[in-house]
């Protein structure tokens, strides 16, 4: 059996190292109240602060890209079947909203206001809350 060529060692970094595939992708996302929001369907990487927008050619010495957002929604379809939705159609949860990463990804904000939660809210308001006994309308008028 041929042993694979050893990879160059990872440069030392301060703090916890997260493997995108292992620790982020496909993990459950909970909001600050512990309510499930979504699953991490994909990740968005952006240029590091101060770095110029890059074309296909990446010059040597460019700072490494940084994780800017967790993505959800239709992007799951393109991740499975290939392709790439236009950037304007991505549903993002900004990385700055993430409070901690463990077995689940916890957000520091409530899921109520997030774009990522709009389908849930729509189904709740248009369908489920209209059925008696759903507990959705505390103030029936």
């Amino acid at each position, binding site marked *: 059996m041929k042993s694979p060529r050893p990879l160059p060692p990872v440069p030392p970094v301060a703090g916890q190292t997260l493997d995108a595939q292992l620790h982020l992708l*496909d993990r459950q996302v909970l909001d600050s109240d512990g*309510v499930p929001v*979504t699953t991490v369907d994909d990740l968005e990487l952006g240029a590091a602060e101060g770095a110029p927008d890059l074309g296909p050619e990446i010059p040597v010495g460019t700072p490494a890209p940084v994780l800017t957002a967790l993505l959800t929604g239709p992007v799951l379809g393109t991740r499975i079947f290939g392709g790439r939705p236009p950037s304007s159609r991505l549903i993002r949860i900004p990385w700055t909203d993430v409070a901690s990463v463990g*077995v689940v990804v916890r957000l520091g904000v409530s899921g109520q206001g997030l774009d990522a939660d709009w389908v*849930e809210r729509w*189904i709740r308001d248009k369908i489920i*809350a209209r059925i008696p006994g*759903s*507990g959705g309308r505390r103030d029936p008028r």
Partner: protein
Amino acid sequence: VKRLLGVALGILTAIGGFVDIGDLVTNAVVGSRFGLSLVWVVLVGVIGICVFANMSGRVAAASGRATFEVIRERLGPRAGLANLSASFLINLMTVTAEIGGIALALQLASSVNYLLWIPLAAVAVWLVIWRVKFSIMENVTGLLGLTLIVFAVALFLLKPDWGNLASQAIPAVPAAETGATYWYFAIALFGAAMTPYEVFFFSSGAVEEGWKIKDLIQSRINVLVGFPLGGLLSVAIAACAAVVLLPAGIAVTSLSQVILPVAAGAGKLGLAVVLLGLVAATFGAALETTLSSGYTLAQFFGWSWGKFRKPAEAARFHLAMIICLLVGIAVLATGVDPVLVTEYSVVFSAVALPLTYLPILIVANDPQYMGKHVNGRGVNVVAMVYLVVILVASLAAIPLMIVTGAGA
């Protein structure tokens, strides 16, 4: 005393909840055609479901993560989606079979055509899911399902030749059957005993009831005592069929034939009790499978789920279950025989077994999820042996189905 009562209640509901339409039909069919020569499969299946239900319960208690979240996280989106599609469709088939089972049982009790009972049964299932507390739902259906013990009572009242019955329990292909049908029904019986929805339901139920590690002892007792006793109930169903139907040359094709031996052994009173048991067992299983279809979808896509939340706080979860019930009604409205749906659903369950059980085994060994509660070596050895058995059964199921013409 309260704790003891809790343990007793847990065991009783585990027994009552073990038997569903798949177990009822498959055991009766097997008993009426093969006598007790396939009884060993029930034993193998019960040990398997004990091992894996226990494991999924431990994963849920240690990490708070239910089975399908784990499947998605471990298999990634592509294999996870393929797994979801297969598991979900088979589960939907089981939902359909269970609702058909409720309707057939009500038909037997009322002489009103089962097609008229189907919408009522589905609405009743939905209402319970919509409003009733999880623990009450579990305990009531489980306790009422216990009335199926009447199969065991009827077996004694039939006064069979016990020596002859015991000698049937040796694995052997009866003269009237071929080897292929024997193994086909072995797989069906295995699938009925180990149906994947039980694991989805068990692990999600652990999250619903907020199990912690200290609750695991009780759940372990429930599983290790309740499921084997439930398996014994399955054997009693098969034995009843073997005593009454096998000598008469009646192969079971309908639910009325399943309960025929009870009527023969325990009379009108027995019949009344078994009808109650049939309705309770199929109703309980319809609840569990419908919830399981919601659980699998919600956990894969990361939706908010659970009966511990108000329906408005888990909107997509509840909408998904409503749609599943509607699909079940639509399928049954075509007039397809629910018993036939059941027979196919248990075989397809056997096909899908590795999809559920492999990811659970992997995660149960992952320290990030489990901390110090990872699998012990003994559990892993047993689980690996079962994985081989499951894989063989899964691969052999479809070819055997084709060769035997679905066991005809």
